[in-house]
């Protein structure tokens, strides 16, 4: 359900192109978009559609070539590297396709890595509880299954109480059953914390979980659909 609130993110004519050899690649062409707090957004697109680029720019990892991106009152497109890092530090939680946990640290330590640099974090064990892995706190990633690792990664991402949770193909490396558990965890967090969740994926089935589905094609928004009945993860099939 859409809630009439001030947008958390507002992109206007967001474009990104970069040189590749002799030619230029236009990853994004004039994206206009608004993302609100508390939304559950899925960005769909094939590979090369520009969804990863969009996620990177939203997460402050990259700057647009032209256009603006506002986060609340801050113009991210005009920020320098340092300011973007601060933005990321405070407001963004990231979940990667390949988990990217630090292999030498326990689950709890991996979460602590983030809670210790945050201004208003939650208790690390709380974060683990939120994903149902509080009793695996002292285990190392090597001792966890793929799904459990991803859930720890999610706990790590939300440990700092971010304003937005960005997930890049979170189930891409998992099978259906495990993937459902992970998506469930994400849904739970969305429910209990009310964080804006943005998932990018090429898997259309996931879109049924979202409030809004944004389809990207060839660097532009092809369609935006509202979903009035988001489904729980367990019902998804792909």
């Amino acid at each position, binding site marked *: 359900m859409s809630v009439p609130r001030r947008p958390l993110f507002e992109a206007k004519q967001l474009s990104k192109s970069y040189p590749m050899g002799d030619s230029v690649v236009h990853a994004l062409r004039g994206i206009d978009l608004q993302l609100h707090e508390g939304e559950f957004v899925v960005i769909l697109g094939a590979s090369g559609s520009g969804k990863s680029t969009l996620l990177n720019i939203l997460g402050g990892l990259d700057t647009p070539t032209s256009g603006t991106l506002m986060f609340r009152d801050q113009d991210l497109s005009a920020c320098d590297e340092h300011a973007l890092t601060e933005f990321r530090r405070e407001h963004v939680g990231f979940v990667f396709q390949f988990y990217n946990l630090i292999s030498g640290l326990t689950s709890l330590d991996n979460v602590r890595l983030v809670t210790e*640099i945050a201004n*208003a974090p939650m208790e690390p064990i709380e974060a683990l509880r939120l994903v149902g892995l509080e009793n695996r706190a002292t285990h190392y990633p090597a001792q966890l299954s793929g799904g459990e690792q991803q859930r720890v990664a999610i706990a790590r991402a939300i440990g700092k109480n971010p304003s937005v949770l960005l997930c890049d193909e979170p189930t891409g490396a998992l099978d259906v059953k495990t993937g459902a558990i992970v998506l469930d965890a994400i849904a739970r967090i969305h429910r209990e914390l009310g964080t804006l969740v943005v998932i990018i994926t090429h898997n259309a089935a996931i879109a049924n979980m979202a409030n809004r589905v944004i389809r990207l094609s060839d660097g532009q928004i092809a369609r935006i659909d509202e979903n009035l009945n988001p489904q729980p993860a367990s019902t998804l099939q792909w």
Partner: protein
Amino acid sequence: MPPVHSSTNSWSPRNIGFAALLIAGLCALAWLGFSESPIPVELGRVDVGSVELSIEDDGETRIRERYTITSPITGKLARIELHPGDPIEKDSTRLVLIEPTDPSLLDARSQLEAEGRLKATQTAIERADELIKVANESLQLAEHNFERSKQLFSLNAIARAEFDQVEHSFRSANAELRAANFLRSIAQHENSIAQAALSLDTTPESTPFEIHAPIDGTILRVLHEDAGVIAPGSPLLEVGDPREMEVQVDVLSTAAVSIRPNNKVLIERWGSNQTLSGHVRRVEPSAFLKISALGVEEKRVRVLVDLDQPWEERQSLGDGYRIEARIVVDSSPADGMFVPTGALESNAQSWFVYRLIPSSFRYPRVERVEVSVGIKNRDFAQITGGLNQGDSVVLYPPEKLKDGAKVTIYVANPD
């Protein structure tokens, strides 16, 4: 922004603490490592006492009055059984026995010659008597002056230099009298010889010609030992009075200018551990060339020294013995301060010492103090200003030593 407590935040108290510790550590390191290390030094003391300036050289003893006994006639000399060092008594010890052989002594020409000689000796006796009279008078005057000066000096009414001069004159007068007496004895002796030669009898039953000792003293040298025929004038013996012994020291002319009559002299290394003392009688006015021990031709001046000790205390000291003489030409007051000479350092203008600044630290410091130096000899130097008694000074300051340097003290000879 709400306060952060994370340790990964760059400016957290913990990190600032670390940084401060690191900087403190580096500073301590730099201070420890590059601060000067203390320089090892040896110390001497500033003491109170007199410093003597003396000229050291070796010299030799000489018996002042010596006389060679010669034969007045031709004859057969009996073997001389006397040896150098044998004591002789005036008129009683028989030195020489000659059997006259030459009848030519009886002819007229020889007779005239002998008479002439006799006359000469008589004149010599008269002259000697004159000298004795003059010497006696001088001595009386000098003695009187000396007694008076002794009293005045004890009352500090006259200067030391003047007293020295009067004492010196008294001593000289004594010596002059003794010399005059010696001449008299010799003259007497020659007179008797001449008489005996004149009344010579060459008959076979005649008694041989004898020569007796003209003075009390010792045989110095035996010049002709064996029996045989000798001609007149042949030197036979040398005799002398060892009581009249002086010391001759030939010093460099540059050194002689500082020597004055009556300077105290210490005689060492003459064969006994005892040190003899004496006084400079005379510094001869003319210098002569002498090739030194180092092979350099140098101008030397002869200094004559009278011995203080009577003959009884120095009987083993013979004639021509090598001795070591130390002529004291100057000395600083007994209440003055001195330091070991090794403590002194100098530039073109003045003298410096390094004085220890007492402190409770492990490594005290030294300060470079300018001092004024008076009399300096090989061991000690008189300090006329700049230091206090009891100060410690650095001996033979190493090249590295500077004003304010840190030192560590070592003692090479603990005793």
